[in-house]
Structures are given as structure tokens and as C-alpha cells.
């Protein structure tokens, strides 16, 4: 009996502590239950708040990169606040060293602290988790080119109006000149010949890095050949119609493996990360740097003594073809937001307000995908990319992006392992490519 009294006392201790918690933190404490009440009557909550004159606060998860700096976000938030005095925006950012905010958002979701507005998240995953608000197709959304492409089961969950070409190779014009190269390579064979010429002059032909950069480089060098011939490859992979061990993939991996075996990649590639390899290229320590269009933003702001050009990653037969994202990522709104209207307003502002839109495009070197595209003041390199984009058919995704369907979660980690293993000297390509199939089979749900 006495023992139970002891337990009772403890329970009281705990509850007193928790009571303090919910009082002092009541503004911030959002249980999922409260959230869903708000969703069932989305307008009442927000009107109530505005009627009493108290500013509404929405939480916004930003995605900070070397291009999209904290200052970039804070500047836009200031402008939004000035135009919407009733809405306060609190910016948070993921804490970890990862390629996406997904893990952070998952923990927040599990705890009921999912931000009102998120950016750069894997949309499909959070739609599956029933976390995102369906975005009504209004006039503003209809200004976006091909917005239907991102719909999941006929519903739109993210606001994005961008095109982001990713399968690009940036090259150092000065080093190309030194090696006597006048024409950029279009086919695999030309690529190898170019690299050979550069290597003969003692120039490092290609640059890559460890972490996610290895998998990314591998993917853009190899998969443009595959998806050129099958633009729904991931969907077919789900249906078991194709495999990573098919002859075309092995052949593409062979091409990458050859570039590695002949020593065309930078030494110590696996010891440096994305930020470092970017610096290497800008310092002129390598002739070709396969990377997405966002690199051109860093290029525009860098001091250097050479010009940078760009071409699409070569394919086997020389077909010009770009991989990349169309209306991917962008901004999404939480289904459980207490202030869905304000959140949606903010999300739209960040993507569609002309100044914000241009700022976003410029900061990350993206291209407008509005029906009346907005042009921003592009650097010469960015104009080159823009022209590549105009001359090419609509893009498909690659790596962890949609190719007919979104691939299984975390597949990019396996691409990383394959690419890093090849860089480490493992040439057993059928085994390495089989590990992608293996990963796929284990992780499809």
C-alpha cells in the first residue's frame, strides 16, 4: 500500500512538471489532435486570430545552401511581413548533415511539430504520411506550366514553378584551350577522347567528391543514356519490367568505370565533399565538373581567371538530352496547420511573387516554369544553360527523382555506395549494379 503512495507522489511530481510545461509553452505546443481540429474548419481559426488583432505565427522550415543563404530567406520573410502585418513567420532549419530535410521533418511529424510551410521535402513521402495539404488549383497555380506533372493521384501538394537541369558538365575553357580541344564532347567516345587529351597535358580531366556528390556524378553521367530511351524507367522497375543489371545499365556503368580506371577523376575525390570540390573547380584544378545548374550561381559570384562553359552529359550516340527536375520540390503546406490560409499565402508568396520568384531562381540558378516565364539577369554561363534547356525535349528526373514514378526511399544512398566503390577500385560492375536491385527489392513497400 505504502509503495503505491510513493508512486502516486512521483506521478504528481511528473504531472506538476508537465503542467508547467504546457503553460509556459502553450503557444508552441501543438498536439496533432489540436492540429486536426483546425483543419476540419480551416477558416474559423485564422479569422478568430485576426479578429482579436493578434498576429498569427506560422513556422517555416527553410533549406539553407551556399546559394540559398539564411539572409536570402530572412530578407524575403521581412518583405512578406511588411506586406502582411497580421502574419509572423518563424524560420527554422534542419540540423543535420544530410542531402534533404526529410529526416528532420519526419521527427517533427512524429512529435506533432510539423512546420506550417516546408521546402525541399520529398513530397511523395509526406503525402503518404498524410501530412500535406491539398493545394487548390486556382488562377495562381494555373499560371504554372505543366503543374499537373507533379500531381499525386490527381491532387497537387507542392507549389513549384521551376526547371532545374541537372545533367550538365561545366568546363574550364582555358584548360580546354591548353589541351587543344575545340569542340565539347557529345558521345561517350568523344568524352573519353577529351579526357585523354586533358590528361596527356597533365590536367585533371574530371572532378567529383565523396558524400552525395559521388552518387550524383555517377547518375548524371550514366542515366541520361538509359532514360533517353525509357522515360518511365522507375515505373517499369516497380513492375519488374527492367532491372539495374540489364545490359544497358551495365554498359553505362562500364563507361563510368572506364573514366575512373583511366585515372581521369581527381585524386582524393572521396576525401572531399561537395563544397570542397566546387572550390577545386573554381580554382582551376580540374577541367570538367559534372554538376547541376545550381553551380552556375556559385560561378557567377566567384573570382577566377578563366571562363566556364557548359554542355549536356554525353550519351552513347550523342543525342542531346537533359535530366533534371520540373516543378519538383518547392513549397508545401502542412495538412495540420492551424493557419492553413496564411501558410498557403506564404508558400505562394515564396514561389510566385514575381520578385521572390526571380530571387529564388537567381539564387539557385533555376529557370522559370511559369506560362509567362520570368527572366532574371543571367550570367553568360546561365544564358548558355538556358539555351541548352530551350533546345532540348522536356526533362525527366533521375537518382531519387521521378522517372515515371518516384523510386524507393533512400536509393540515392545506394547510388553513392556504387559510385564510391567504383572510385575505390571495385570493378565488379554486375555485382555493384545488382546491389541496386537488391536495395530496391528490400525497400519497396
Amino acid at each position: 500500500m505504502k509503495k503505491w503512495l510513493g508512486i502516486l507522489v512521483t506521478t504528481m511530481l511528473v504531472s506538476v512538471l508537465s503542467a508547467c510545461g504546457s503553460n509556459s509553452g502553450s503557444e508552441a505546443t501543438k498536439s496533432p489532435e489540436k492540429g486536426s481540429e483546425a483543419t476540419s474548419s480551416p477558416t474559423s481559426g485564422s479569422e478568430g486570430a485576426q479578429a482579436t488583432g493578434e498576429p498569427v505565427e506560422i513556422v517555416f522550415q527553410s533549406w539553407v545552401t551556399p546559394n540559398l543563404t539564411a539572409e536570402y530567406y530572412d530578407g524575403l520573410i521581412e518583405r512578406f511581413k511588411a506586406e502582411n502585418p497580421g502574419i509572423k513567420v518563424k524560420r527554422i532549419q534542419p540540423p543535420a548533415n544530410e542531402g534533404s530535410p526529410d529526416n528532420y521533418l519526419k521527427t517533427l511529424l512524429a512529435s506533432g511539430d510539423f512546420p506550417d510551410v516546408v521546402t525541399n521535402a520529398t513530397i511523395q513521402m509526406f503525402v503518404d504520411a498524410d501530412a500535406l495539404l491539398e493545394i487548390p488549383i486556382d488562377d495562381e497555380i494555373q499560371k504554372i506550366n505543366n503543374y499537373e506533372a507533379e500531381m499525386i493521384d490527381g491532387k497537387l501538394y507542392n507549389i513549384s514553378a521551376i526547371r532545374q537541369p541537372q545533367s550538365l558538365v561545366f568546363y574550364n575553357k582555358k584548360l580546354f584551350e591548353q589541351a587543344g580541344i575545340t569542340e565539347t564532347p557529345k558521345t561517350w567516345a568523344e568524352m573519353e577522347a577529351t579526357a585523354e587529351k586533358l590528361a596527356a597535358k597533365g590536367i585533371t580531366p574530371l572532378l567529383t567528391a565523396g558524400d552525395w556528390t559521388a552518387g550524383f556524378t555517377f547518375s548524371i553521367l550514366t542515366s541520361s543514356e538509359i532514360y533517353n530511351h525509357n522515360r518511365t524507367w522507375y515505373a517499369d522497375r516497380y513492375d519488374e519490367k527492367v532491372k539495374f543489371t540489364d545490359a544497358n545499365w551495365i554498359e553505362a556503368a562500364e563507361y563510368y568505370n572506364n573514366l575512373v580506371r583511366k585515372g581521369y577523376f581527381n585524386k582524393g575525390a572521396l576525401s572531399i565533399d561537395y563544397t570542397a570540390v566546387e572550390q577545386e573547380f573554381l580554382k582551376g584544378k580540374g577541367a570538367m565538373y559534372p554538376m547541376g545548374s545550381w553551380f552556375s550561381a556559385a560561378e557567377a559570384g566567384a573570382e577566377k581567371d578563366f571562363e566556364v562553359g557548359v554542355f549536356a552529359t554525353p550519351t552513347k550516340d550523342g543525342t542531346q538530352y537533359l535530366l533534371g527536375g520540373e516543378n519538383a520540390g518547392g513549397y508545401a503546406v502542412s495538412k495540420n496547420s492551424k493557419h492553413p490560409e496564411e501558410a498557403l499565402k506564404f508558400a505562394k508568396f515564396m514561389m510566385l511573387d514575381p520578385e521572390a520568384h526571380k530571387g529564388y531562381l537567381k539564387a539557385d540558378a533555376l529557370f522559370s516554369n511559369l506560362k509567362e516565364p520570368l527572366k532574371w539577369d543571367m550570367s553568360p554561363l546561365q544564358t548558355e544553360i538556358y539555351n541548352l534547356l530551350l533546345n532540348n525535349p522536356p526533362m525527366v528526373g533521375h537518382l531519387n527523382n521521378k522517372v515515371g514514378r518516384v523510386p524507393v526511399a533512400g536509393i540515392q544512398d545506394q547510388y553513392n555506395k556504387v559510385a564510391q566503390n567504383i572510385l575505390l577500385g571495385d570493378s565488379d560492375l554486375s555485382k555493384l549494379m545488382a546491389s541496386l536491385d537488391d536495395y530496391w527489392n528490400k525497400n519497396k513497400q
Partner: protein
Amino acid sequence: MKNTVRNGFRHLFLLPLSIMLLVPFYIALVNAFKTKNDILASPFSLPIDRMTFDNFIRSAVTPSFNIFKAYGTSILITGVSVALLILITSMMSFVFARLHNRFLSVCYLLLLSGLMIPPQVILIPLVKVLAALGLMFTPQGLILYNIGFYIPFTVFIYVGFIRTLSRELDESAKIDGASQYRIFWSILFPLLRPATASAVIFLCLWIWNDFINPVIILGSTGNYTVTTGIFQAVGQYSTNWDDVFALVVLASAPIFLLYLFMQRHFIAGLTEGSVKG
């Protein structure tokens, strides 16, 4: 004469080890006062002629990070967690050391299993529990979790120490009619000072430096500790070593000052408290 030679031999081992242990601190400290270019050009030199405080001024307070606010949160979380831990576990260990029955043996085993769990592994279930109790995103939630997580370690230190103390002490007090609470708090607890000192030292260090739990449990409510704060401020892609070093110095300064200030107690508490564990 022979002694001097032997002493020289001693330093031959000890000096290189000290240098090994100190070099990273030296690098962080001197480079925090240099510009980015100077760091790259001469990372090991002293910044005597070109010393700059810009790194500190720039990175201590930004729109998204305020080191003083972070100090406040860290001091609150660490102080309350450690005080409650000492209060709760010292009494708990007294019971473990003085009573023996099957229930307590099972509890002791359960506590030991807690020593082996990596905190990252129970993150999601922990979040569920805290959310169910309404403690998510509150300092209280983090404090209660800290207590739960460090109970096994603290009990481990205390139980070993209490067992070395003679039972005659409590028994004679018992004859004088003192309650168990009195026996513990007025007779035993003062004798536990070495164990308390070492427990306080470790708990302060660990809780102050903890990273993943404050990130998750404090969430986005605007509360951040020094450790989570600098990670946020440094960010994912940073190679701005000037800011990084300045922030590392700012984050560690309080702990270093505390250490230098309390050094004697530090070492004494450890040497007396830890062996008996």
C-alpha cells in the same frame, strides 16, 4: 642525479601526449582571431600582428542565433537536470545499497540495460512518449528525459560508493531514532561528496554538450542550447572556418572557464569518486 634522468624520461612521454591533446584546441583558439585568408595561409601561427575580433562580432548574434540566449537555455537545462538527478539518484542508490530483494535486483538489471542503449536508437519512440505526455518542445520534457537517461550512470557511481561506507553509521543513528531520510541526508550524503562531485562533473559536461536530444525535444519552439545553436549557425555546407572556430570557442568557453575555476575539485572529485564505482 638518477632521479633527474628518470624525470626527463617521464616528460619524454608526457609532453608529446600533451601536445597531441592540445593541438586541436590551439588551432581552434588562434584561428578564431584570424581572417579567413590568414587561416588558410598560416593556420598554425599566432595572430599577434593581425588579430581580429570580427569573427566573434559577426557570429555571436545573428537574426537566427543569439549566443547569450543559448547560454541561458543551456544553463537552465543543465542546472535543473543535474540538481534533480543528484537529488533523485542519490536516494535511489541508498535504497539499492541498503536493501536487497528480488524486486530491486530486477530494477538494477533494468537500469544497467539503460547504459547500453544509444540515444539515437530510441528517438522516435521517445518522441511518441513525450508527445503523449504533452512534454514535447518544452524544457521540462528535455529535463525529464535527461534524468531518465542518466539515472543508470549516476546510480552506478553512487551505489559503488555507498557500499564502501560502513553500515554502522546508519545503524547507530537508527538507534537514536532518526528516520531514514535523516540518516541519509544528514549523515550519509555529506560523506558522498567525492561521488557527488564526479557525478556532477560528468553530468554537466554531457548534458551541456548533448546534441541530438535537445535538437529533437526542444524542436522548433525557438529554444536552442549552445551546442544545437552553433550547429544551426554553422550549418550544413560551411567551410567558413573563421566563423566555425569563433563559434566553437564561444560554445566551449563557459565549460572551460568552469573547468579552470574548479579544476582542483574536478580532479579530486574524480580521483576519489570514480574508482570506487
